[in-house]
């Protein structure tokens, strides 16, 4: 059992209610079954009220690390919202970080109230690419709507994370985890979403 980096530091980020804690806990359950030492840190509380939320994950073959990633030491960032990708890179980014981002903005309330301006999405993508070794962009929200279920955009992005092939996870393991996480009627939808995500990063590679 080896890792590209040990500890391997993954950040899953987004805004309250997007389901990033669900993803990090699914990854946590899979990897802990495989025998990795693992810690996840989450900050929630005011999350439901529109705030930025992220989980940090430390994966190791040596010991259980603390949940906090030191500055500049993320290896992979999975982001459900493009502005949040930048926020996480400002804390944990470095020349070698890999990012998988949704391109669909969730406008902060200040933007909706006309008090702030959301950055131009093309400029934001360019900046994120410049701050990453490789950046993958998916319009997961649009893809989820095409599947008739906006709620699965987080699973499409999870697929994106699998598709870049840098995590110690296999497609079969995630499929099995989806089968036990979701109620029977939602399993196929989520499996579809997962594969949509895997395909879209492989196409863009």
């Amino acid at each position, binding site marked *: 059992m080896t890792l590209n980096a040990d500890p391997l530091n993954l950040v899953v980020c987004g805004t309250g209610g997007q389901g990033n804690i669900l993803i990090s806990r699914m990854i946590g359950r899979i990897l802990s079954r495989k025998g990795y030492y693992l810690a996840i840190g989450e*900050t929630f509380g005011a999350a439901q009220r529109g705030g930025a939320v992220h989980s940090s994950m430390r994966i190791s073959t040596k010991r259980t690390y603390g*949940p906090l990633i030191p500055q500049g030491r993320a290896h992979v960032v999975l982001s459900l919202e493009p502005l949040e990708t930048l926020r996480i890179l400002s804390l944990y980014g470095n020349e070698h970080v890999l990012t998988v981002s949704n391109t669909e903005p969730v406008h902060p309330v200040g933007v909706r109230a006309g008090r702030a301006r959301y950055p131009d999405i093309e400029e934001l993508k360019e900046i994120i690419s410049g701050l990453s070794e490789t950046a993958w962009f998916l319009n997961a929200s649009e893809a989820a709507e095409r599947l008739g279920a906006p709620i699965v955009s987080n699973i499409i992005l999870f697929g994106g994370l699998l598709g870049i092939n840098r995590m110690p996870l296999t497609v079969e393991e995630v499929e099995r985890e989806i089968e036990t996480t979701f109620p029977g009627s939602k399993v196929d939808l989520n499996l579809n979403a997962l594969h949509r995500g895997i395909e879209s990063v492989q196409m863009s590679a």
Partner: protein
Amino acid sequence: MPTNAVKQTDESFKFLLGNEAIVQGALEAGVSFAAGYPGTPSSEIIERLAERARDLNLYVEWSTNEKVATEGAAAAAFSGLRSMAAMKNAGLSVALDFLTHLSLTGLGDLGGALVVAVCDDPDAHSSGDETDSRWIAKFAYTPLLEPSSVSEAREMVRSAFDLSERHKCSVMLRSYTRLSHGSSLVELAEIEKSDRRAHSETDACITPYLAKPKHDLTLRRLDRIREEFEQWPFNEYHGPEKPRLVIVASGSGVQCALEAIELLGLEESVGLLKLTTLWPFPKQFVQEHLKGVREVLVVEEVDPFVESHVKETLFDGDESGQNVWGRQSGHIPDFGEINPDRVLAALSEILGIEFKSRSASYGKRVEEAVDKLLISRGLTWCAGCPHRASFWSLNKAIKGAKIDAYVTGDIGCYTLDVFPEGKCQMNLLHAMGSSLGLAAGLGQLGRFGHQQPIVSICGDSTFFHSAIPALINAVYNNSNLVHIVLDNEATAMTGFQAHPGVGYNAMGDPAKRVDIEKLCAALDVPVETIDPFDIKAAIRTMRDLIKREEGVRVLTMKRACDLLRMKR
């Protein structure tokens, strides 16, 4: 480090949240009774215990406040059961009056035990303060344990119950956001249904004549506990035999320190002394391990609690010329949570090492991008929130009639009023229930020329928690104010825990519903009830009540939280 060497894939290990590990430890220890009041990051403790109530024959309650919760849990301990009280840091202050007296009497001789689990929120991620509860343990003569990891939390809760039973006193377990809301793999032991029977014959009374001798006995008990803490298995030294520097760390600081030592490659020269028993402070253990060590760095959060005791300990020892660095010396800022970066910075400074977390050019590019593009993500009420409507109406009622009202607020989702996208109506905002206590005082100032109408605002759960005594005070002393209860039928901010107004209890059983309007009406004051979505009626009623200008007037703005509607 041996503590976190948990790695197994079989069924006896589970990936748990820190609060779930605390619950697991309590269940393995045979807890029968648990009570608490919700507050981030503590709420999952009572929630998870309540889920197990039926199959394990536990009693679990959401109490009206933390003092009542601790008293309830202590009652069970007096009667021979193992019990737990759980709360956030702010709640511990509410329970403090009882705790100080409880330590003087102890728990009696029936073999009961009480663990008070308090979850601090360093950095105040979702709190009004980052108060460090550890001082309260010392203040209240209560033994204090602080686990440094999720797996250790489960083990230490078990030993906390044994310690409590052995010494017949309550024990405090301090958690913090990164533990309560961090997850790791935890080893599970079997949970057995406790067969303890409750019986009351304990005499534990505190009076003026008894207080002094009891104080003596309490201090002697702490002496005995200190002796145990000198040998406590979770306290340990890890590192070289002759270290150049030793980091003394507790809680979250342990992992942060380990990481910093590793990143700087200092395994051969820097040692780590992990402390988990913080009060009474294990002096000899610390003295022994710091013998001959010139440089000491203390890593903890938030206040210099361990740091001041390390200094005291070394001052009492034979050695001189030792440097103790930490929050007091400014090597670590004296506010905010601990993280690996703060330890890296302190270590590099003390040892004169160059350390850069990332290249200067990357740092510069990130900084430029942040300046140019990054905007904050403010908090506000959810779509469909009745609070927004209530504050909108209040704003119209006051500003529209050019009324110079002064508004006191309280703790809950309505606190979001003070953020830029709220209506910014609140002028004062402090502790649970303070809206009414402050308003009761303000409402007396007319005799000093004060002419502004006073409006206080709190939610339903906060009303039950601690606003009622202040309301009675205001009625009794004839204070001049309008109190608005924003009744959304939920403790919404912390995740929809049950409270006396909702008709069910923590375990999901039907419960008596305490009616806020009837309770207020019983005080013989005017009480009006309005649906916040009836904007016209709300503005009119608010204005009328404000203009009435005599005594206490109550308005309940009643509409269920919209998230609750979606949950149903």
